[in-house]
């Protein structure tokens, strides 16, 4: 996963770059809009993290130029302002997501992964704790041992793994596992979750219930 990071504040740029590299991403850092525009034309990237307030051409303009060239590269905007106009304008220009400074690193990482996954239909292996999902083969293993999952259970678990450490609502789960609009009640989701819990309890991960809202898959505390 190759990230272009465009941020004029050297401390922030360095910090983000280290964190992203720590998550196994390749990071190119540039500090102004013109360099960003050149870099985007020169290299193939998986995702761009773009500050709005940049010297030279600003982040909005970089996105506009990028989209004008027909690029589908996912772009996440960073801004110190949280005005509606900024957000609306950013998304209108063709940005895919928006994060207000200061942010938590896991939030940035999660959003970047989500952006890349959306733009890249090729399934990649998902791994958390001892659990490994191979979406291509639709095979789930815990420490190398295959576990049996129904199609629905698989879909729910895959969605939770894609959003590991993130809170997802029951409705989001339903929307994700049933794109064709079959009827599934919120109660049914609870049933799937309890079955999945029983099957992954040895993987060092757990599904936390967020009362009245949904679930969060996370690594169990050591």
């Amino acid at each position: 996963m190759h990230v272009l990071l465009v941020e004029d504040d050297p401390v922030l740029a360095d910090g983000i770059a280290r964190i992203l590299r720590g998550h196994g991403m390749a990071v190119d850092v540039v500090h102004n809009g013109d360099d960003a525009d050149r870099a985007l034309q020169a290299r193939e990237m998986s995702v761009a993290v773009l500050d709005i307030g940049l010297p030279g051409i600003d982040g909005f303009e970089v996105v506009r130029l990028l989209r004008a060239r027909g690029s589908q590269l996912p772009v996440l905007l960073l801004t110190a302002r949280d005005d509606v106009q900024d957000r609306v304008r950013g998304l209108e220009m063709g940005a895919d997501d928006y994060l207000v400074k200061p942010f938590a690193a896991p939030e940035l990482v999660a959003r970047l992964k989500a952006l890349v996954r959306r733009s890249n239909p090729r399934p990649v292996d998902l791994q958390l704790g001892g659990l490994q999902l191979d979406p291509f083969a639709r095979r789930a293993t815990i420490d190398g041992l295959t576990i049996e999952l129904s199609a629905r259970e698989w879909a729910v678990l895959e969605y939770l793994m894609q959003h590991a450490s993130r809170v997802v609502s029951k409705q989001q789960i339903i929307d994700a596992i049933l794109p064709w609009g079959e009827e599934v009640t919120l109660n049914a989701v609870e049933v799937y979750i309890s079955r999945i819990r029983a099957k992954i309890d040895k993987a060092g991960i757990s599904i936390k219930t967020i009362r009245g809202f949904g679930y969060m898959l996370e690594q169990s505390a050591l």
Partner: protein
Amino acid sequence: MSLRGKLLRWLVIPLMVVNLAGATAIYWLAWLPAQSALDQSLADAAWALVPHVQESGNSVELQLSQQAEQVLRVDHFDEIFFVVRDINGKTIAGDLDFPVLRTPDQANTWIAYLSRMRGEDIRAITLRTVVAGEPILIGVAETRVKRLQFKLRILLSLVGLELLLLLLIPVVVWFALNKGLLSLGELQQNLELRKTDDLSEVPLAKAPREVVPFIRAINVLLARVQDSARAKQDFLANAAHQLRTPLAGFKAQLEWLQAHHRDDPDTAQSTALMMVSTERMVRQANQLLALARSEPGDFERNRLERISLDELVSESVQNFVDQATKKTIDIGFDLQPTFVKGDRFLLRDLIDNLVDNAIRYSPEGSVVTVRCTQDDSYGVLTVEDDGPGIPDADKEKIFSRFYRLDQSQQGSGLGLAIVRDIVKDHDAVIGVRSGENGHGTVFTIRFPV
């Protein structure tokens, strides 16, 4: 010193003085004709004597029968005196002790004047005439009883009139002043009755011309206050924004450091503490921004839009869960579809502050629940915790800026003040009560739909 009192004094006193002068004039206007009529009757008496002054040998005598003299001397009120003298002052007839006559300059004219006779004030006239080629002076006088009665009567009527005016003038002036000062009263009411944060212009339309400059001045002042309030808010917002990038940089570096030194307990401890401070700074900056944003004076109602409260809460769930997890607080939700008219950012500030407060001030292991529901005329947001609760005596104070119930907790003291401002911005109503069984706290906000 009130304007009313000043005007009253400046109107009533001169009016009284003018009135007094008028009364004096009236007195003389009434008295002078009366006096000249009375003088005329004295002169008529003198004229009546003239035919009786006749030549007798080479001297002049008064030929007056006793009867005629009695007629002459009869008067209801006054004693009548008369004398006939020659030009040298020699008495020809009449009262010998009649005072010395003043002599008119020409013949057949008379003059009137005051004098004294027999110990009394008298009014006298002297008629100068010529009998048989001799200049003759006839004096007629009367005591002043009648005249004083006249004067008294005039005075009494005038005093009555004056007393009436004395009472009427202040009353009339008072009413006139009140009527005239009504527009000032209206201006005062306009300024007094407006809400503390209302800095809109005072309307000029109905104001009288004299008050317009004042209203203009007040409006200029209001505009200046508004400008300065806005400048303050802009400064706050700007400062808060400016802090964000360096804070983000600091935080990112710190997160990396934490991840890298997870296994060294001393460093991990230190970085964890630094993270706590950083989070505080971030929160403080965000609170300053929220404060600037929610300041009712700066708030534009036309920015309100239809907002799904449940979705707005959903967007922050991740943040709430992360916060609650750190404190092992069980956070739960009950989010029914709820629509309110509001400002997205302000409402998020409001929700964040309420939930943050609930988590911050509840001990570990507590339960916090966020609900939103819709009834016919309200969108209702409820945040409930089972923490220590708020004493009844403090339930009002908690909404004041910088008021902190629990000094041992780190907080800005701004959270609920911001909440209150945002509630006000939305014409919503906030209520705070104890939870079930008297434990914990329930904040309820009802938004008009």
